């Protein structure tokens, strides 16, 4: 018996190889050189790796544009426009988050390269999810992404809440993974394959007389994803974890988990179970309505910036689901566009929160923000722009993100759902604005200035710059999302 090694298209897996390779290299270096691998070295390696992965997506893009979408490694990995853009978003998020984490680790005296090793591995997992064309690879990506994050969440050893959050995240994440794996098994039972293309082909050419097994499998997969993206009613872990995790980790997590999970969800629901649209759409309808409304409403009563942002990110997850609900090319492009614009904003927002949090990462009450924009117009103004962007104000990318998903929903005839989501956005506006009000409050003008380290400042500036630039001129990003989806591997 001979073992057939499937052909490998190296360009397709180049970003994963770069990110994971950098992670392993750092790990080796730390093992060999010990404390000589300083935070500066680790950060440099990570930023270089993320930039290299970003550069690799350009090569991938030109390949896809020329040759079209392709699969490799026994059709388990796919290289298409969608995956390329999503990979680029992961790389950018990693880059920005690394800059923030660098200053944070100096401030909190976190020595060693472990943080960056785990972050690189998690990012590799997220990229793998965007490229997965097989439920097993989705699962693998999900686990690689999550395991790194479990540890990162617990990284602040001085605070017990950090460990508590990690345990909570680990237990619930473990459940979610188990549910997902069970769902994958049931889908395999129903269709005879875990490969997304084969499942799609099977469902397209066969009529299931007893679809119960498939429905159960699909439902469990959806629950698994809903846990990961914190869709209501599977959101309960997220406020605690967002609050307990070290702030830069929260920003990193909020961005790359969303990218990875939504990319994989699009693949599973649209390309694999696309024929079952009529079955999963009503479920998603309820999920979207609940997620947007509950996320916005519960955020209203929060007094802690990180918890508030957790609920805000739940609200955003609802909007991203709205694009998937549409089930069309426009909807897929819209969700991709939403993720593309959301990721840098959320990293930059948490970067400001990291700075305000101060040594010990503890000042997260909204009161800590009073008068910030008065004392430090640039820092406070940046946060105001980021919050307005999350709110969906025009001239920021947040507006076009909402526009894109709502347009896709209305195009598919979901006027009511779009209206529900928009009213939820109006509720959400309340707490973003209350925060902005605090920023521009008259009092506390004598409070200590917050020092903005260079790397974090750069990350914030990049996030704000992207929001404003593409908010003024969304054409290129919109076209990119559209092309990426046209080059989607069906």
């Amino acid at each position: 018996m001979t073992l057939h090694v499937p052909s490998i298209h190296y360009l397709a897996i180049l970003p994963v190889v770069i990110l994971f390779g950098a992670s392993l290299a750092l790990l080796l270096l730390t093992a060999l050189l010990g404390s000589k691998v300083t935070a500066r070295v680790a950060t440099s390696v990570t930023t270089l790796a993320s930039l290299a992965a970003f550069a690799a997506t350009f090569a991938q893009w030109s390949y896809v544009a020329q040759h079209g979408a392709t699969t490799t490694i026994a059709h388990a990995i796919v290289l298409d426009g969608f995956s390329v853009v999503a990979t680029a978003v992961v790389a950018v998020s990693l880059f920005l988050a690394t800059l923030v984490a660098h200053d944070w680790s100096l401030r909190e005296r976190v020595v060693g390269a472990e943080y960056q090793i785990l972050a690189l591995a998690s990012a590799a997992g997220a990229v793998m999810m965007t490229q997965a064309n097989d439920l097993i690879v989705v699962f693998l990506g999900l686990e690689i992404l999550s395991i790194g994050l479990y540890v990162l969440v617990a990284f602040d050893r001085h605070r017990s809440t950090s460990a508590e959050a990690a345990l909570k995240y680990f237990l619930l994440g473990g459940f979610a993974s188990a549910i997902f794996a069970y769902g994958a098994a049931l889908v395999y039972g129903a269709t005879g394959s875990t490969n997304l293309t084969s499942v799609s082909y099977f469902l397209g050419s066969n009529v299931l007389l007893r679809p119960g097994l498939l429905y159960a499998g699909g439902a469990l997969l959806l629950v698994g994803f809903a846990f990961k993206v914190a869709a209501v009613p599977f959101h309960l872990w997220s406020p605690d974890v967002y609050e307990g995790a070290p702030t830069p980790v929260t920003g990193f997590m909020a961005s790359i988990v969303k990218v990875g999970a939504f990319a994989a969800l699009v693949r599973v629901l649209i390309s694999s179970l696309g024929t079952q649209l009529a079955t999963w759409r009503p479920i998603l309808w309820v999920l979207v309505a609940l997620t947007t409304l509950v996320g916005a409403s519960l955020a209203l009563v929060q007094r802690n910036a990180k918890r508030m942002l957790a609920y805000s990110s739940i609200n955003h997850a609802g909007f991203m689901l709205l694009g998937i609900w549409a089930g069309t090319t426009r909807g897929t492009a819209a969700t991709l566009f939403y993720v593309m614009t959301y990721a840098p904003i959320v990293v930059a927002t948490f970067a400001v929160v990291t700075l305000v949090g101060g040594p010990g990462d503890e000042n997260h009450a909204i009161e800590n923000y009073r008068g910030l924009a008065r004392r430090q117009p640039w820092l406070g103004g940046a946060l105001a722009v980021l919050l307005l962007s999350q709110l969906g104000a025009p001239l920021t990318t947040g507006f076009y993100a909402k526009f894109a998903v709502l347009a896709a929903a209305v195009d598919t005839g979901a006027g009511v759902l779009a209206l529900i989501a928009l009213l939820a956005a109006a509720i959400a506006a309340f707490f973003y604005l209350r925060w902005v009000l605090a920023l521009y409050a008259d009092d506390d003008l004598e409070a200590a200035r917050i020092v903005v380290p260079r790397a974090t400042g750069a990350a914030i500036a990049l996030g704000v710059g992207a929001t404003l630039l593409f908010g003024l001129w969304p054409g290129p990003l919109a076209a990119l999302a559209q092309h990426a989806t046209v080059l989607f591997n069906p």
Partner: protein
Amino acid sequence: MHSSLWLTLLLLVPVAGALVAALVAKREGRSYVVAVVTASVEMALTLVVMVLYNNHVAGAQTFDFAGRFVLAAPFGLAYDVALDGISLLMVALTSLVVLLALLGARDRRREPAFVAWLLLLTSFTMGSFVAHDLLEFFIFFELTLIPCYFIISQWGAAQRSRAALKFFIYTFAGSAFLFVGALYLGFAHQHQTQGALTFAYGALSATTMTHGTAVWLFSAFAIAFAVKSPIWPLHTWSPLTYAEAPTAGSIELSALLAKLGSYGLLRFAVGLLPLALPTMRPVLLTLAVIGIIYGSAIACVTPDLKRLVAYSSLAQMGFITLGIVTGSKIAMVGAVLLMFNHGVITAGFFLIIGFIERRRGSATIRDLTGLQGPAPVMAALFTVVMLASIGLPGLSGFVSEYLILIGAFATHVWWGVLGTLGVVLAALYLLWAYQRVFHGRAEGDDAAMTDASTGERWVLAPIVVLIVVLGVFPRPVLDRITPSVQQLIEHVTPAGVNK
């Protein structure tokens, strides 16, 4: 046909002014000079546009200065501007009101930021009035919220935070309906033409739809515009916001931003969805009349001058709504004219109230008595503005209200009769307030109040001139509005607008 560059300049000059004002923030008073210069340039540009404007552009009907550039094709997003007689009047109002607000309601607290927001607001308001694309209009419409929010929340009175939040959330929630409606209309058009997604005004107005769809869309649009205008019963944000905003903010909100609501109702709800008008007309007429009577009644008993003007505005906006939806051409022309006149008159009101407040630290009617003695000129100016608001023949308010009521009587008698009650009530609450504030014997602080300064008189001069000139000779303005309204009506008429 003129170049759209003129309109683009109208949008960019204030933005540039805001940037420069922010850059020279270090030097005391410098940013104010920049802002005044910018507003003057804007005014000059507006005058140029007014002179150049050509009512009869071949092919484009009454729209002049048209230009369209697609910004993001997948979203159907385009920069598309054009100007007709109706927009022209609103653009003129915008330039005028901003200049007056800057000159007459200077706020020295953190001035650079204040004038920068004010100038940005000018640009966004201009954008809404010249937008020839539903999506673009919506974006500008939403954008105006941000400067307003900052102006109210940072320079307002004691309850400013609450007022700013209430204002933002109300308007934002209202425009959610407009957003969904606009998207629906855009896709309905795209599905019909099988072409690219577009929100261009001309394209959308050719969309065919069922009566039911039109009614739903009209309702969605009307909710957003009713919040902004405000139309009863969605007005509840306005008294608090007008009262708590700084003087310049109140002027902007009531004189300009309220007009965005009625302008939107006329241009986009009535203009794009004429099919729904027969069904929606009784509803809107009723709401308008309730607004007129309710606003006037509350204005009679409100203890605060700013709130009085806020409620009086509610009544005036009722008149405008009445004129827009009756469907008679003469009433529509009157409504557009009243949009302008009401803007000028309220600006006058808030400016004078601001002058009084600056001297006496209060705008509560009970705190003020006998101001006529120490401040005769101010009393005289207030009288002119007040009489124009009441609708005294020979002053501007009369012409517009008269046109609206003629139209209303010709088409919807009973609503016209009830609306006329509002004119009577306006005389009651304004004269009564005038008596309490300006008549009687001035004592204490009231007696020591100084009269309007030379600068303040000059700021009010254009308002008085406009009130008088448009009262006796409104012809030139009517000549520019009428063809545009005619064109709108011709589009609307087949759906049975004219009785």
